Every structure is written in structure tokens, then in C-alpha cells.
């Protein structure tokens, strides 16, 4: 069983997943950041593989992608860096279809397995294409596909996504690009409070626009956990030590 599935099996609530962009802020910061997040008690990490044209991302993550590419990050280098990360924290990678397609999907999956990546998020991978061409491949390399759902995703589609999933489901807090936080999610959000009643087999982690410890507590109350991206990237941007920053950030966001 993958490290990711183990964590999901043993911890049923209050999960915290933190996103970081590989190659940001400095080219080789990834292992330092991942290991610091692990030490700080984060349950899993989402590693962004930078892309020149990230259409689902808002300004903060766009910028981190651009900086990382300028720093010289490549997919092969990310796989090298992943070998230096602790095996004890579950890792999922997040990227777009084109870099993976160009790299070669099978080769990409192979490399993921080698370095202990357990899940892949490709927001622009069409579900139909996944089923037709990649489902078997992902299985063969022990990778869980992680799909997004939104407040607009229909019942039938939710069912399909649940059936195709093997780890967790990524619920976006509202239909938007990343980092659109407008000053806090509201407790009266009926989409969030209805998540557990959707009747899905897999745990749900809520991501996009979680910017405060209150936001995090709210999504951890209504779902199985939360995913924080832009807010962490922003936090990293002006700190001298990514290691200290990662630990400090987790402390603040969990009110620890």
C-alpha cells in the first residue's frame, strides 16, 4: 500500500496537505521544504511541477512557476530532488498535461514510482482520455489519479470520479483559479457543509483559496482535510530560510 493510502486509512480527519512549487524560491529548495513540512507535522505534500502556461493558476502560483523555470528547473531535476526528500511523507505531484505528455506519460509514471510519488493531479487531463489511455498505466505504477470536483460538478460525474479514484478527491472551494482568496471562506458555505453528504467513498480534501487558520479549520471540519497552496508560496517569497519559513507557516496556519 502506498504511503498516501496508509495515511488516508489511519487519519480520517483534520488532514493537512501543503503545496509547493519545485524550483522555488531557489532551484534546489524542494528537499529542504518537503522535509521541514514533514517535521512540522504536515500529513502530505503536493509538489508542483512548473509549467509555462498554468491556466488554472492565479497570479501567485503563476509567478512561482515562472521563477522556478527561470531558476532552471526541469522534470528530471525534480525527480533527482525527490530522492532527497524523506520517504515518510506522502507525495503527490501536480502539473499540467503538456509537460507530462512531452516527457512521455509512461516514463513519467515510472519515475514517479521510483522516487516514491503516490498520486498525480493533472487538472487539464480529460477524464475520458484518462480512462481510454492512462488508467491501466497509472495502476501499473501504483499511482493514484486525483481529480478535481467543483460546486458545479454533476451527480453523475461525481460518481464517475469517485469510481476512478483510489486515494482522495480534490474539492475546489469555489469554481475559480488558485489563490483567489477574498478574505476568508464563510461558515455558511453550503457547498462545504454538504461535502460529507455527497456520499463519496473516498476522503475529500478541499483546496483553493484557503488563506487563514480559520479557513483551514472550517474545511477540516466539513471535509477530511485541506490543501494550502498560494498562501504558502506567498509566505515563502520573502523569507530568508525556507526551512524556518515552512515550520513557521505550519505553526501559524494550524494555530499550533
Amino acid at each position, binding site marked *: 500500500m502506498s504511503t498516501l493510502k496508509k495515511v488516508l486509512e489511519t487519519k480520517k480527519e483534520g488532514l493537512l496537505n501543503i503545496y509547493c512549487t519545485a524550483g522555488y524560491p531557489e532551484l534546489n529548495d524542494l528537499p529542504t521544504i518537503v522535509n521541514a513540512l514533514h517535521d512540522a507535522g504536515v500529513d502530505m505534500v503536493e509538489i508542483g511541477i512548473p509549467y509555462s502556461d498554468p491556466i488554472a493558476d492565479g497570479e501567485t502560483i503563476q509567478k512561482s512557476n515562472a521563477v522556478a523555470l527561470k531558476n532552471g528547473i526541469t522534470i528530471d531535476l525534480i525527480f533527482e530532488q525527490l530522492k532527497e526528500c524523506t520517504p515518510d511523507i506522502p507525495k503527490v505531484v501536480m502539473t499540467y498535461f503538456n509537460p507530462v505528455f*512531452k516527457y512521455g506519460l509512461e516514463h513519467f509514471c515510472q519515475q514517479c514510482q521510483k522516487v516514491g510519488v503516490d498520486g498525480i493531479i493533472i487538472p487539464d487531463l*480529460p477524464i475520458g482520455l484518462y480512462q481510454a489511455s492512462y488508467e491501466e498505466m497509472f495502476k501499473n505504477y501504483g499511482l493514484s489519479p486525483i481529480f478535481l470536483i467543483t460546486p*458545479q460538478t454533476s451527480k453523475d460525474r461525481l460518481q464517475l470520479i469517485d469510481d476512478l479514484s483510489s486515494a482522495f478527491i480534490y474539492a475546489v472551494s469555489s469554481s475559480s*483559479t488558485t489563490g483567489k482568496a477574498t478574505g476568508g471562506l464563510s461558515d455558511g458555505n453550503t457547498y462545504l457543509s454538504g461535502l460529507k453528504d455527497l456520499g463519496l467513498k473516498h476522503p475529500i480534501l478541499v483546496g483553493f483559496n484557503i488563506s487563514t487558520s480559520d479557513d483551514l479549520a472550517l474545511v477540516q471540519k466539513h471535509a477530511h482535510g485541506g490543501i494550502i497552496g498560494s498562501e504558502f508560496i506567498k509566505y515563502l517569497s520573502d523569507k530568508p530560510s525556507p526551512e524556518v519559513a515552512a515550520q513557521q507557516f505550519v505553526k501559524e496556519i494550524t494555530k499550533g
Partner: protein
Amino acid sequence: MKYDVNEQGFYGDFGGAFIPEMLYPNIQELKSSYRKILNDDAFKKELASLLKDYVGRPTPLYFAKRLSEHYGANIYLKREDLCHTGAHKINNTLGQVLLAQRLNKSRIIAETGAGQHGVATATACALMGLECIVYMGAKDIERQAPNVSRMKMLGAEVRSVHSGSKTLKDATNEAIRDWINNQEDTHYIIGSVVGPDPYPDLVTQLQAIISEEIKKQMDGLPTHVVACVGGGSNAIGAFYHFLEDETVKLIGVEAGGLGIKTDKSAATLALGSRGVLHASMSYLMQTSDGQVIEPHSISAGLDYPGIGPLHAHLHDCKRVLYSNVTDQEALEAANRLMQLEGIIPALESSHALAYLEKMTFNSTDKIVINLSGRGDKDMSTYINAAT
């Protein structure tokens, strides 16, 4: 039609809708309704009437006598430059604005490179009383200043895009992001035959009127139809009704920039490989790591690292020949047309004209050049090149 899109939204290996889940409802809505709306009698009547009385269609097919003498062949210019707003782009925007009304969308967004699509969108929105926001790369805002003023006068808001290469590709990303954030009330009018299914087909259907008219205006079939290709909308419009007339040679001309052996080019089919840009599978200019390469062309409307999926398919099955010309060759061709015919062409269209230099002719050849737009917007480039 042999080259039409299939149920899954593909032309051979190319096309599809590589969109994040957030856009799924919008794309589904469009996909399930656009063909029905385009074929609806009331829609067709309203669009036809606007195209005739507002745009000035049919545009003339003009026999260019002196240019023909110069090359020793029969050269016809399809005068899309005479369309209201100065380019073929309005054929698409009027159709899509009528479509948006039928989908009850009150807010329109668009991307633009040369500003022609932005102006055409702003115009259609003014006509219908719809809110209009146009995304434009900061670099293009600089080099196409007259069109920026035009859009603003027409009531549109122009949003400057500073990411990436600050040109058309990045403006398109930003428009897609806007759509993700405003899906309920907003329709995205994409400006070429690119983007997720069903846009390539939607825009193709709206531009096909160009070849429909050429067919009626011409005595018999042409031997060649030549058009410039950015995303490929004027080209597909000029080719569409000839695709199954296999004797007609179809030629798409991409922007070679400083030349395809340099790193300053926008000739996607010469330099690209398969991949996904702006949500469809096609060819694109990219690094070995799948990062999109910033293109270069003197012409803002051709400065795009991708190409519509139908063109990728027509390239692979060899129905259309794709070539490219350099910035310099396009400038020279523009001057030739100015002096021989008294027409100032758009820099984009000058790429199609420049291809004449690369052809060998029979005196009986009948060559149609799609003159996709006029050169008012390019005056500063022409003036700088002359001094």
C-alpha cells in the same frame, strides 16, 4: 464532410478539450448547443442580415491586374480587408455574440494579439449592448496602439497582460482564467480556430463564409488558395469549401520571423511538435521539457506558438501545404501591393502575399490570396521599416 470534427471533438489525432474541471459546465453547455443554434433559421437570418448590411458582405473577389502582370499569373484578392473593422475577425465575433445572447450570457471576454479580434469583439458587443473585456499582452498594447484606442472608444475594457511573453499566448491564458472565475454570466469569444472543442469547429463554421463566397464569385475552381496562418481562422475560412476539391492547392503561410533557423520565429508547423496548448492537442513550439517557447513575429496577429487542431490534421494528411516567410519578406510583399495595387495590407496578410515569391506559375493559374485585413493598424511598423 471528410474533414469535419468527430463526436469526441477531434480531427484525427488533434483537438479535444483539455480543460480543468472548473470549465467543464461551460464547455458542455457550448458543445451541446452550438450546432443547433448555428443551424437555427432565425439565427441564420439575423447573422446573414448583419453580415450583409453591417459588415458589408459579400466582400469582393478582386482581380489584381498589375500584380498578376508582375507574376505572370491570374491573381485574385479576397477582400476581407474591406470588412467593417478591417479584417475577417468580425465574421466570427458577430456570430458568437448572437450565440452568447441565446445562451443568456451578458458579459463577453476575448483575447487579442494584433487587436483586430479585440476590435471586432468590442464592435459586436457595442452593437448588442453587452459588457466587453479584452485581454491583450503588454507588448502588443505597445505595438498596436491604434487598435487599443479603438477598443476603448467602442466601450470595451482592455486589460493588459504582463505574464510570459506578454503577447497573444499569454492574453489567451488570462482570458481562460477569467472564464474560470466568471463562468455563469460570461461567454468567451476566442479569436481563432484554437482552444478546447467545440471552439475550433465553431469558429471554422463562422469563417467558412469566406470560401463559400469565393466559390460563388469565381468562374470555375481556383488552382491555388493562399492564406496566412496565426491560429488559422482566416485560412480555414478561405480553405473550407475547397477541402474536398482535391485539385485546388491550399497553402497556409506561417510567420517565419527572422527565419526558422533562428530562435526568433512563429512557424509552428516547421518548428513545433505535438502537445497541448490552450486546451487542445495540436502542434506547438516547445522545449524538450514541454515548456512553451515564446514565439517571434513582426506581426502581432501571427505571434502565436500554436496552431488550430484542424490545421495540424490537414498538415499531417497533406491536404494543405504549410510554408513560412520571414518578417522581411512580408514587409517587401506589403510594399509591392501598396505600389502595384494601391492597397495597404495588414502585416499578417502580407505573409500570404509574400508566398507569391516562392511559387512558380503557369499563365493559366488562378490564385486566390486571402487578404485577411488592412494595414491601418500597422502604419507605425511600415513607417519604421521605410526609414
